């Protein structure tokens, strides 16, 4: 089997992004699992490679890398918020998303951005997932977070909103869109007929309307439509029983905590998130651009490396990863 190609946009060139991306690209485990493709200004990569004495892969591999030009005109100034760095951050991510859309890479794992720098560039930006939506022409409400752990793949219909707001957002359309996104994503991961389990919103999935009507009136119709489309879907079932059963390839849950509780129960690490629904596989690390230590060569690349390895394993359907520990 050929190794998957994974694009690594550098993130904010003044943060630790380029450093951890370079460290990851040079990591033997990463190189064994995939073909990493650094996406960023060539001179930024060269700068950090030299100043931090990072071991890079052989130069001919890099010649093949489709560097994006982010428009960073000066050598990077680590730890400094500038509009140019913010603009470059977005340009790197856009270039990587473009490659994924065109099929030149199988997935994108982005290094951290700095929201202040992007804002200084005057670019409306509320995180990578919304940029993925925008760049792929996908409505933001059709983009979902799928968390992956050794035990679960869980797609969240609602995410970072209050419980009250989540209740308003759960519609037949949205649930159906999430089910379809789950199906399509698992197709792209090599599973032609994934079994999808859909959680209820209320206790015991409402118990026939006794504890709330949403399961009957909103979730069940979405499941029915997905079944008519030929998808293999069960639900809505009480989230506690459904998730304990583990009989499905992917779960669709209604609330942030319904999905995050079981994922994190198994341990702090060993899970990662993929932005799905936009036709590409996009991930990033949970930590920020750490301006305070940028440019010093001390940034811990392990979380970023683990995310790349997780993504590579999903793409090759290798057994799920047990993460490396940071030093």
């Amino acid at each position, binding site marked *: 089997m050929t190794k998957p190609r994974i694009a690594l946009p550098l993130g904010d060139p003044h943060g630790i992004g380029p450093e951890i991306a370079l460290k990851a690209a040079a990591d033997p485990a990463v190189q064994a699992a995939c073909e990493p493709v650094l996406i960023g200004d060539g001179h930024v990569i060269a700068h950090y490679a030299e100043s931090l004495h990072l071991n890079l892969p052989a130069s001919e591999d890099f010649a093949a890398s489709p560097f994006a030009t982010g428009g960073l005109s000066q050598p990077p100034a680590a730890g400094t918020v500038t509009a140019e760095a913010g603009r470059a951050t977005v340009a790197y991510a856009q270039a990587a998303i473009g490659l994924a859309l065109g099929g030149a890479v199988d997935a994108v794992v982005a290094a951290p951005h700095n929201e202040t720098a992007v804002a200084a560039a005057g670019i409306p930006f509320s995180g990578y997932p919304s940029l993925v939506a925008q760049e792929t022409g996908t409505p933001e409400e059709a983009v979902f977070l799928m968390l992956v752990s050794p035990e679960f793949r869980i797609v969240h219909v609602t995410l970072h909103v209050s419980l009250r707001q989540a209740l308003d957002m759960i519609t037949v359309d949205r649930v159906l869109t999430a089910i379809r996104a789950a199906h399509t994503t698992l197709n792209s991961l090599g599973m032609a007929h994934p079994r999808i389990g859909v959680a209820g919103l209320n206790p015991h999935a409402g118990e026939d309307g006794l504890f709330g009507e*949403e399961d009957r009136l909103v979730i069940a119709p979405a499941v029915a439509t997905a079944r008519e489309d030929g998808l293999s879907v069960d639900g809505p079932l009480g989230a506690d029983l459904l998730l304990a059963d583990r009989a499905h390839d992917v779960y669709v849950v209604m609330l942030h905590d319904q999905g995050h509780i079981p994922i994190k129960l198994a341990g702090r690490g060993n899970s990662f998130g993929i932005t799905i629904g936009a036709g590409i596989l996009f991930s990033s690390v949970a930590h920020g651009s750490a301006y305070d230590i940028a440019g010093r060569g001390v940034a811990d690349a392990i979380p970023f490396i683990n995310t790349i390895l997780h993504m590579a394993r999903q793409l090759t359907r290798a057994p799920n990863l047990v993460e490396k520990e940071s030093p």
Partner: protein
Amino acid sequence: MGDPAGIGGELTIKAWLARTQDSPAFAAVDDPDRLTAIAESLGVTLTMEIVENLSQAATAFESALPVLPCPLSAPATPGKTDSKHADAVIRSIRQAVGLALDGEAAGVVTNPIQKSALVAAGFHHPGHTEFLGELAGSGTQPVMMLVVEGLKVVPVTIHTSLARVPTLLTTEKIVHAGRTAAAELQSRFGIAAPRLAVAALNPHAGEDGLMGDEELRIIQPAVTALSDDGLTVTGPHPADSLFHADARKSYDVAICMYHDQALIPLKALDFYRGVNVTLGLPFIRTSPDHGTALDIAGTGRADPSSFMAALHMAANMAASMAEASTTS
């Protein structure tokens, strides 16, 4: 007895058949004829002894399943609930609670009931827990706790639609749940200084009001009040950070805001041996954390693990209480 159409009788019989020297002695408050019929359908040899009180039961237990008769007015069909059994179902609960209130029984373990079959007979309580609260006397506000090895959770709201949860949650309810849990962990679980962890309602505990304000308005004041009581309490915690192995070591009970928040981690940790404990009653009451399982009643496939865990927990709680009263 529980609902005679459910798996309760099968669980009782299987628990007695599985007895060892360490098993707590118990008596079934049940219809002897129905237990005989169930034993026959299971293809097991069951020796029963009709007893009049629990001291007879304790003597008989090793060689026979002791039964305090609670006759049905008509035979029961597995899987088919019938409101004409409601009277016996309720009588069985009353009888068992009476024995516990008199101090004759160390505790009550209830088999699952089917509420719909009782409503027709005038039963107006949302469930067992509330009915037991009424039997215990006025002013009793029972609190449900669910227990598996390594995790105890108290859901402050339980069988209600999620849409009603933000309205139903009050500082008083959370404080009552916390106080009741702390008191009972001391008196009946042998935990001298219980540590409480209170879960948030919203993702990331609301992020200072960014994603919901129930943490600031309702939950934080409850944590403060519990802390002012001198209790060891932390929170509101983002619920997803509360249940991994390291986090679970940092508290004795998690106070949760809604059903799934409490039940997802519980069922994930141990699907088969969860026990439901009613806190705040003047007697010990436990039950299996599953329902009547009408779909498999009469098939012999019922798993007695949760019921047996409930029996053991009631016995352990009684032992803890006895120990506390000798040392004090």
